[in-house]
């Protein structure tokens, strides 16, 4: 049956409308769980708040388990889902830049827009920085082209590259997540409470 739009159950014209609705819901939940505060987001790097780790890891596990159950029951075809292509070195370097920006600025791109929406000045500066970065990247694209499109590995997933059963991978991933939560709690208790 699913995915709904590629299989024509929902007409493709609804694509953007659904995206806007999901985006609004996502932004609302980010803001209401406090993710528009750069102090909370940066907390995961300094060890006084692990909400980011917990929320995104939980979301990942819930989605993973849910998708594979739906696939098992025939509601969704995993093989039809879009897998983002991997450009290895581009991803590594981009990830490092994004990580530095995350620690330094205290936002990831999504939460920064969320914080702009509630009028945080640091977030506005942050988004301006993103815009400048986008501008530089597009103006100097020929320089980055080789990095950007090089070391292309195709639309691969962990299941493809490790060659294990996806079900075992999910199980191991769930265990890793729970261990990470326990360790995060343990670290959180050791570190001096920061009021923010």
């Amino acid at each position, binding site marked *: 049956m699913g995915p709904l739009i590629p299989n024509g159950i929902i007409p493709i014209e609804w694509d953007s409308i659904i995206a806007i609705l999901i985006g609004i819901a996502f932004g609302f939940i980010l803001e209401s769980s406090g993710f528009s505060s750069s102090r909370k987001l940066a907390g995961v790097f300094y060890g006084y708040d692990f909400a980011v780790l917990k929320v995104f890891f*939980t979301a990942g*596990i819930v989605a993973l*388990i849910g998708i*594979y*159950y739906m696939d*098992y029951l025939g509601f969704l075809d995993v093989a039809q889902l879009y897998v983002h292509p991997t450009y290895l070195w581009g991803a590594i370097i981009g990830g490092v830049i994004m990580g530095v920006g995350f620690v330094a600025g205290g936002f990831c791109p999504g939460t920064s827009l969320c914080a702009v929406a509630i009028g945080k000045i640091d977030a506005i500066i942050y988004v301006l920085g993103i815009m400048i970065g986008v501008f530089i990247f597009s103006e100097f694209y020929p320089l980055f082209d080789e990095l950007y499109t090089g070391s292309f590995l195709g639309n691969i997933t962990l299941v493809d590259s490790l060659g294990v*059963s996806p*079900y*075992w991978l*999910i*199980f191991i*991933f*769930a*265990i890793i*997540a*729970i261990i990470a*939560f326990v360790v995060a709690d343990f670290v959180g208790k050791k570190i001096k409470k920061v009021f923010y």
Partner: protein
Amino acid sequence: MINRNLVKVLSFRYPIIAAIFLILAGGLVLLPKYEKQKGIAPQELLNKSTSPERYISTDQLADIIINQDPSYIFVDVRDEESFNKYTLPNAVNIPLKQLFDEDLVMYLNQDQFDVVLFSNDNFYADQAWILCNRLKYKNLHVLKGGLNEWYNTIINPPFPNENMPAQDFELFSARKAASMYFGVAYPEQAKKEVKAPIKTAPKKIVPVKKKKKMPVEGGC
């Protein structure tokens, strides 16, 4: 008023969620695996097989060939020997055994042309049709009745009885015309040798003037 029992349960909320994750993820590992059916869903296959577009009649086919419609590919699924003996004009031979040969499959797995499958009957062509449809190939048709029907209707159309309706006679003449296109000769079409008239010297005709009867003159 605080519900103390609820508070007690909720203080374990993280271990409970963790346990749910483990149970669900473990469930995925332990669930019996089954081979997923690939290709189109049975319901869709059923719809396609009952669709009127599945079959193409010999009359339609003759029309397509005579009008040289470029959007059709004719695929003969019989073996090569039969193909060499007789086939439709411009047909491609893809024997059923070699249906999915890599260099032949491009005729079937495309969406620009309409493909007409045929064999002696429509039996093998139907099998090829089902197999290709399972693989989601598009625009496939089967020649209804196959080459036998083709022979019986187009190449050698039955002459209608005199008590049959006029449409049958029209159909017959259309089929007869089609068969002539495909090279069938009819006895009445064969030219009778007209004997050239032997030229003989024309007789000289000497007009003899008849004596005009004189009108009766006079009289008393």
